[in-house]
């Protein structure tokens, strides 16, 4: 239907990461890391000295880049920029919250699952017709 954001059919897209060092290293080992011609990376390492602004900028950068299809973000970092993550509405790139070593996965804080919980408890948007 017209008016909805078209999801492009892409043949090769990257997976971006915003996480702490260990997680990033692990995934870089598996080969998702990418540095392009302009020395732009598709990962952003967050440590204790990173400012929230820097994280926000990285998030905005990854979500506006066209060659990134998925953004993996650690849950505790997502909590720092919760507002921005929650107000992000495009289907692509997909934002996925992953647990980190020190912070185990907490489903209540996940932005997508919280919508699900709302749906389950409020008897779902899909049946709000009645």
């Amino acid at each position: 239907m017209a008016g909805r954001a078209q999801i492009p059919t892409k043949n090769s897209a990257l997976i971006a990461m915003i996480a702490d060092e260990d997680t990033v290293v692990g995934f870089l080992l598996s080969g998702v890391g990418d540095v392009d011609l302009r020395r732009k990376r598709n990962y952003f390492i967050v440590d204790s000295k990173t400012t929230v602004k820097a994280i926000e900028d990285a998030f905005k950068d990854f979500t506006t880049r066209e060659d990134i299809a998925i953004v993996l973000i650690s849950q505790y970092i997502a909590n720092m920029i919760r507002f921005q993550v929650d107000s992000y509405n495009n289907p692509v790139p997909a934002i996925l919250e992953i647990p980190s070593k020190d912070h185990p996965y907490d489903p209540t804080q996940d932005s997508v699952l919280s919508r699900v919980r709302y749906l389950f408890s409020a008897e779902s948007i899909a049946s709000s017709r009645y």
Partner: protein
Amino acid sequence: MHFPPPSRFLGQTGKERVEGAFFFFPSATSSFLLRFPVGDLNRRIPKKKEGSQIAVVQIDYLEGRMSGQGQRLTVVPTVTMLGVMKARLVGATRGHALLKKKSDALTVQFRAILKKIVTTKESMGEIMRASSFALTEAKYVAGENIKHVVLESVKSASLRVRSRQENVAGVKLPRFEHFSDPGAGDTKADLTGLARGGQQIQACRAAHIKAIEVLVELASLQTSFLTLDEAIKTTNRRVNALENVIKPRLENTINYIRGELDELEREDFFRLKKIQGYKKREIERQLQAAKQFAEEQFAEKVSLKKGISINSAHNLLVAGAEKDEDIIF
């Protein structure tokens, strides 16, 4: 004495313009007729261009209904319009049924995806834990420098995702799948852990690749979920709009047109009756006039014959017609 010839009354009734007769009849319908003279019915109401949407909506204030229910479209109340409106109502009804079915199908998909997302997220937690455990092992074995080596060795991504669209119940949902791009710079990463801990490095890599698979699937599910959510909202909005706005409006318009057509018919009937009555009175009046004329002529003849005045001739005739018993004439 001047007697009008009968032809003036009997003459051109058939050709008499029907409209001209109305203004003489003060009645309930005349005020309406004065405002809507028959030939000008099309002038008052804006003409609708063929194929365009009727944009004007008339709000029925007379009965003080809620704004959503009293509205009808402003149209010319003709039989053609009635047909058009009926066709549109049929279309709206069918569209409403189809959209409801679509919304139900989408809801079924939605709930299925929801369930899958919940289970996948839980398994993802497990897998992430396993992979970070493998990483710790590798770090322990290969030394702390492994981080710097890996960070340096990043070149071009060898693990990428491909996105394509799937059509589910009429909605295009995205699907991600991961694939390995063999041409990219794998060689540098392969040399990691050459000194020590090579096996752990490989194990760590395998664990992370498995984690990536799960994560890609999860991302697929999540985007499908969001897209379906929006699609369901849009469809429901349309269903509600059809049900609560469009159909009542069309029904009101159809009722209005029917009412207007009935009233026109009644007017016609009323007009017909009035004309009949008028004509009947005309004919009676003419008969009366003719009879009077005939009587006067006869009186003239009698007066001429008998040499008396016309008045006495009249009296004779009238008296003769009365049959007075005393007079033996």
